[in-house]
């Protein structure tokens, strides 16, 4: 990290004899130096360009505040990237805040859905789609909960939550009441669809941040400046788990499943099969307290094992101000690792999956916390931006105290985001400075989504910025490796293939991933899976282990394209195999 930030020094020697020659020689040297300098600046193999202005997106986030410092203002919000109209490209759904007590507005803000028109143009179709919820948006998940072939959307709000069922015609219907998932009046956080009991439909995990009421709002000052109180001033609450009844309704099984017996300050969550036993587990990043890792016993009963698995705390046994959490196999050892973002003064934490149910905090030895210490960090993901076969890490940054510079000038409210490049040997280096103008934007970012918005093969980035317009980054990485995008279509298992475990084998390269619904910082993205293959120009085999289903094997797959793998259409299908 420090090597890359050292700057580039150039030396020159210009001893000419004649003035004209001397000038010409000097000029050439200058040109050469400038070229070298620009080349050196562009040396990072990853290039992210800011294309926000050309997209037509006019959404501006509001946190609904009016200076009274309600805690939820600081944590809004996530976003969703998904193909809402099933036309083959990724659309964007932004969550918005809503007026809080004391805030008056002429027009109430709402969430916004932008349809991808191609070529980096997006159209606001919120009204038409009927998905402009005016609740206080915090977390979102997308999943085909009714298995009718199109993605539905669940909003985890401050206030009543909302389940929008996709009508398959570009519109949505609010079916919250019928489904029974409004979840009362809580301060929401991350949320996920997952099949907890392998019965083929998507259940719903709903995290709750904390217990809040206007009457018990805590106001504080630091060095005389009004600040938001930290969550410890508010009691923690347990999360909720709803089992899909298969008929459009859900049943609250929070207590009986075990998850409702643990109160925490839940924020980002991700669901994955961390122990490779064929079912989906749940990792919750709890703010200011130990994280939770709920291990699924295969039937939808969960045991909290974070402490035993060494994911509750960092390597020193300290709790973190956990914000966002994502999973990915950064070292290609076949096991999903976790990356958890956190508060200022703490490094974001990389938990390496040791494969035996245990993890290890490898942040320091891998350099994967570089740049995060002075910042508050939020949305994040493991993404192979240059498709060299190793997943990089993107971290969205921005303080939650909007006046922090007044009492702590070691940090800033707005901040540049961070890009950590995976060097392929288990380490990361900070290439933020060398990865294009998109990495120079300074806003107060929150949720982030990662998907191929222009279908050119590589992964782009959409960032939700607090109180501002979003940031859209196009991946223009100059030399990408070969790649493969995988879309799953469940038949007997859930239609989106959520929870399905995919293994791609290409020569000596073996990559894994899973389809997730809801991840990072209270966001949703990556319904398609992205595999970077480096120099490998063909895929020998793809194994898909469906949650609650068998294993499909697809062989000799050509690369540099998007493939749709349908359950049951692979060769060598095995039933009920464990990985």
């Amino acid at each position, binding site marked *: 990290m420090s090597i890359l930030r050292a700057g580039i020094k150039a030396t020159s020697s210009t001893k000419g004899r004649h003035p004209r020659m001397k000038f010409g020689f000097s000029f050439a040297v200058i040109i050469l130096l400038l070229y070298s300098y620009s080349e050196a600046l562009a040396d990072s193999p990853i290039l992210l360009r800011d294309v926000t202005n050309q997209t037509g997106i006019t959404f501006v986030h509001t946190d609904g505040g009016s200076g009274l410092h309600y805690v939820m203002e600081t944590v809004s919000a996530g976003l969703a990237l998904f193909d809402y109209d099933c036309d083959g490209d990724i659309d964007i759904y932004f969550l918005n805040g809503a007026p809080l007590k004391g805030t008056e507005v002429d027009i109430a803000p709402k969430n916004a859905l932008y349809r991808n028109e191609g070529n980096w143009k997006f159209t606001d179709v919120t009204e038409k789609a009927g998905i402009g919820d005016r609740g206080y948006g915090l977390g979102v998940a997308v999943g085909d909960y009714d298995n009718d072939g199109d993605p539905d959307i669940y909003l985890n709000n401050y206030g009543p939550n909302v389940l929008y069922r996709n009508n398959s015609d570009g519109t949505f219907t609010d079916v919250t009441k019928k489904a029974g998932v409004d979840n009362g009046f809580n301060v929401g956080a991350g949320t996920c669809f997952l099949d907890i009991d392998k019965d083929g439909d998507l259940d719903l995990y709903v995290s709750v941040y904390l217990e809040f009421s206007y009457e018990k709002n805590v106001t504080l000052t630091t060095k005389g400046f009004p600040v938001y109180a930290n969550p*410890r001033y508010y009691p923690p609450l347990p999360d909720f788990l709803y089992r899909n009844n298969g008929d459009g309704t859900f049943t609250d099984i929070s207590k009986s499943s075990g998850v409702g017996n643990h109160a925490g300050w839940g924020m980002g969550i991700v669901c994955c099969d961390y122990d490779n036993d064929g079912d989906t587990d749940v990792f919750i990043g709890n703010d200011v307290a130990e994280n939770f890792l709920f291990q699924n016993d295969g039937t939808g009963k969960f045991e909290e094992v974070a402490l*035993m698995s060494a994911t509750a705390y960092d390597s020193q046994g300290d709790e973190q101000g956990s914000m966002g959490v994502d999973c990915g196999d950064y070292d290609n050892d076949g096991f999903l690792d976790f990356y958890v973002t956190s508060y200022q003064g703490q490094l974001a934490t990389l938990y390496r999956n040791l494969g035996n149910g245990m993890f290890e905090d490898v942040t320091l030895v891998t350099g994967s916390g570089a740049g995060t*210490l002075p910042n508050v960090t939020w949305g994040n993901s493991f993404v192979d931006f240059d498709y060299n076969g190793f997943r990089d890490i993107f971290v969205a940054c921005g303080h939650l105290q909007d006046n922090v510079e007044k009492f702590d*000038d070691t940090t800033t409210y707005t901040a540049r985001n961070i890009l950590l490049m995976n060097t392929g040997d288990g380490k990361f280096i900070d290439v933020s400075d060398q990865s294009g103008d998109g990495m120079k934007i300074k806003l107060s970012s929150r949720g982030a989504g990662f998907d191929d918005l222009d279908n050119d093969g590589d992964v782009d980035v959409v960032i939700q910025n607090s109180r501002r317009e979003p940031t859209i980054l196009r991946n223009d990485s100059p030399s990408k490796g070969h790649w493969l995008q995988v879309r799953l279509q469940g038949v007997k298992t859930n239609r989106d293939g959520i929870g399905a475990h995919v293994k791609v084998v290409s020569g000596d390269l073996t990559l894994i991933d899973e389809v997730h619904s809801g991840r990072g910082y209270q966001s949703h993205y990556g319904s398609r899976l992205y595999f970077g293959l480096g120099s490998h120009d063909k895929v020998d085999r793809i194994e898909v282990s469906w949650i609650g289903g068998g294993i499909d094997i697809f062989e000799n797959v050509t690369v540099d394209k998007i493939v749709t793998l349908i359950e049951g259409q692979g060769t060598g299908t095995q039933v009920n195999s464990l990985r």
Partner: protein
Amino acid sequence: MKRRTITEGRETSDTGYPQQPASHAPKKTLPVLLAGFIVAFNCYLFQVAAFSQSDENSQTTVTTSNSNELNESTGSALKPEQEIAALKKEELELAERLMKDFPDSINPIMLMGNLWERHGDATRAMEYFNKVLEQDPKRPDVYKSIGWFYMNKEQYEQAIAYWQKALEIDPEITGVHHDIALALMGLNRQDQAIEELEKDVRISTDSSSSYFLLGQLYLQQKDYEKAESNYKKAIEIKPNYPNAYYGLFTLSAKLKQQDKAKEYMAMFKKLKAEDMNALKRVNETVNDLADMRKGAAETYLLAGKMYQDGGNLQKAEELLKKATTLDPNNILCLGKLASLYITTNRITDAIQQYNRISEIDPKDPVCHLNIGILSMRLKQLGAAEKAFRKVIEVAPEISGGYRELAQLYLRAGKGFPEARELAEKAVALEPTALNYFVLCWACDMNGDSQNAIKAILQAMQLEPANLKYRNVYEHIKSRN
């Protein structure tokens, strides 16, 4: 850590020449009269012979300041944020004034740097710290502070560079090797971090944090035996150290020692729960205004010291009073103000400050000792006796209370046997020259010249240059 200056009176033991109790007895026989005279004379002699150090400071008359700057009631009409802003403004103005009034001193520059740091402007703080270094490059504490500035920005190499400068000046400075190790860990230079921590524990043998970090590093390097021993050392020093138990739990889990892992996990959870409860209590008592006032009180205290050292006692008093108003529970401020009052012979005011200290910290022996000594000066023997007894009660292991009470009795001309017992106790606890002197006095008043001489000889041996001890010795010897 609380530090207080001890009133000069205590150090010199005898702060005056107590009047002999007037003899109200009717006509006595000659032997009685003679005995009485001898007692009186001996008392007088001991008083003369005892340490009597004149005040170092001139006896200036200090008038109570009615300056408008003394804001007794801070910001009652102001919102807390407004009061904090006003405090900050006043502190900065004070610091500026100090720099003007003491242009040749780096203390005001350092104070300004600390002030900006406390108010969250580390950049400006660094400017002043660097100015301090320009004038005095031999300031390891300043290099240490600057190091942390860079550490917080994740600029590890710069942090290490400054900390190494601190070590060049003072190789035994505590904590710096530990801080360097943290930065090296940030750079994943584990072997070097271990070296630094090993150095740190040689200097600071009670650094539980360094032992814990050593445990962490050895664990990562799979040297499990060393990891375990370092975690355990950390716990020996700090038994309620949850992180060290977490380390042992992690280690045991790695080694598949299930029973140990469970035991350590249970302990970790218990301590962690206690920590969380403590944090909750802290949250409940957080008071930004009170914290800012405490910080400001420190500034006024330092400023008051500067003016006092510079001879401007009036200004010093004004600032120290402001400090005690801002933070009424700051013992250092109260102690410093008391010291100033003693310097200016305002004993009653000084006693008032020590009384206040005793309310804040009733178990502090020094303030009771000072109350006693100063009460003696005012001839308030009852109050003095009460104070000395309090010293004995709260700190039976120090000799001062016994000695001073013994002296009180000797001067009062009563309780000589008890005085002797007290003096013997003092000597037994701390065989100092002064204690021996008092023992000599007590023995003599009890008619035990032999032991009186033994005691004064001890005192002379410990302080051969003390002529007063010699005088007393000669006197007793001549009598015998």
